[in-house]
């Protein structure tokens, strides 16, 4: 068995099982003195569900952006899906991103496309054949619980439903990793439970889920691994953790 978090030295042996591997990563944004991430080392296994918690400005979003190679670290090494991001040419970044789905607080749906078209868009732009799209899009719409609403426009849907569309779009290409940046931030607690159920369902298919959140109730109820950041440093990394234990 491979437990990368507890094993400090022979990391290489575990690399295949590691989906995300941060080794002593520091990120300082230009014109800022304080690092957004300060010597952070984290390993995430395949199929894990990880909550990323911490106050605003603690580095959660930077962590997610580094995984997508939207930003580069100032020092340290990042491996995602077995690839060393420092060695990954810009040309290949899109292929990395195809293996990562993203969900945001503000949904980011296209307002002039209906549910089906919004989900299909993610496949169209990576050149998938139409037959494939016609087959998988209805499946994933059903997976997120929106069957029968494929032809609704985003403005006809509630916030929770819009977030389900966003999750369907993020998951339709069966990514290895799903990054969620405060997916319940704009949604009331009752609806949030439904969103978390969908994320859990996605996680059960073997997709690694990393979710940045402020929502203590959700973290406490899920009992998953919790990584807490504060001022760019990891102050807690607990399996089956709760939101506020460190205080």
């Amino acid at each position, binding site marked *: 068995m491979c437990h990368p978090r507890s094993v400090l030295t022979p990391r290489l042996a575990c690399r295949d099982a590691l989906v995300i591997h941060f080794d002593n990563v520091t990120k300082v944004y230009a014109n800022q003195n304080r690092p957004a991430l300060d010597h952070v080392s984290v390993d995430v296994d395949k199929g894990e569900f990880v909550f990323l918690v911490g106050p605003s400005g603690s580095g959660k979003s930077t962590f997610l952006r580094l995984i*997508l190679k939207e930003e580069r670290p100032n020092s340290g090494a990042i491996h995602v899906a077995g690839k060393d991001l420092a060695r990954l040419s*810009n*040309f290949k*970044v*899109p*292929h*990395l*991103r*195809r*293996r*990562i*789905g*993203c969900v945001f607080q503000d949904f*980011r749906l*296209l*307002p002039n496309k209906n549910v089906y078209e919004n989900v299909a*868009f*993610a496949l*169209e*732009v*990576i*050149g998938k054949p*139409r037959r494939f799209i016609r087959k998988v899009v209805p499946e994933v719409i059903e997976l997120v619980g929106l069957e029968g609403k494929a032809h609704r426009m985003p403005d006809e849907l509630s916030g929770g439903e819009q977030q389900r569309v966003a999750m369907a*779009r*993020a998951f339709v*290409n069966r990514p290895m990793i799903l990054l969620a940046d405060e997916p319940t931030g704009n949604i009331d607690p009752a609806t949030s439970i439904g969103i978390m159920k969908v994320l859990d369902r996605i996680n059960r298919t073997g997709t690694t889920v990393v979710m940045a959140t402020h929502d203590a109730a959700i973290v406490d109820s899920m009992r998953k691994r919790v990584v807490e950041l504060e001022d760019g440093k990891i102050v807690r990394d607990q399996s089956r953790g709760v939101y506020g234990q460190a205080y």
Partner: protein
Amino acid sequence: MRANFIFSEVWIGLRRNLTMTIAVIITVAVGMAMLGVGLMINAQVTMMQGYWYDKVEVSVFLCAKNSQIPACNGKAITDAQTKALEQQIKAMPGVEKVYFEDQAKAYENFQDSAANNPLVNATKVEDMPTSFRVKLADPDKYQPVIDALNGQPGVAQAMNQKELIEKFFVMLDKLRGGALAVAIILVLAAALLIGNTVRLSAFNRRRETGIMRLVGASNLYIQLPFVMEGMIAGLVGGVFAAVMLIVAKVFLFEEIGRYLALGAQIGWNDVASVITLTMVIGVLICVLASFVTLRRYLRV
């Protein structure tokens, strides 16, 4: 690659920026037409230089009976004078060849060079002057020959044809320079306009491109619709420019050529190559301008 997806994106982009697209098309069309006219004048000049410089020589017009030119005093040149003159010219340094052009030959040449000129019908053989045509080893050293021959008995006037043509070439050169200058300015304007259009387009579609980036669309997929927009605008502009150039060939070059008896006329194959060149340049500039702008406004 899904062509219909790209094309629908291009169509949406062009429609959203219709006014800007029209501005781009007009600028490209006029710019490319000016460039084309410049190139056509260039071809015309080269052709005429080849045609005329072969023929350029010092003409020594001889006195005819009742000549109005003061140097003749109204008397025709005598045979003896003609012979003496011929010997004198042949003996001059730098003279390569001398031949005598009689009235019949002069008339024939005139008819050839001014085939469509209405003057031809009004001119009779007797009206044509006789002359010695002097071919020089170095066409630029005509001045001493002319100086020596003017004032000789029986010589009405010695003159260098090159001087006459030169003036015309200078004018054509200025026209060409003007057309090319306007073309360069317009091409610059077109490039900036395209840059702006693409920027607007990129801003209008920032949601779509943001999502495309996130789900891992390749740079080609993200950028191609924008570049195609520029390319299509360039192509349409190029087609308009081609029409303008054809009109210019028919109504400008041919008409002027007929009027001025230029001797040499650019053909349709010249026009075709000019059109091809301007099209390629137009499309290339559009694509380049799109690319450069995308680098700045569409980080991938």
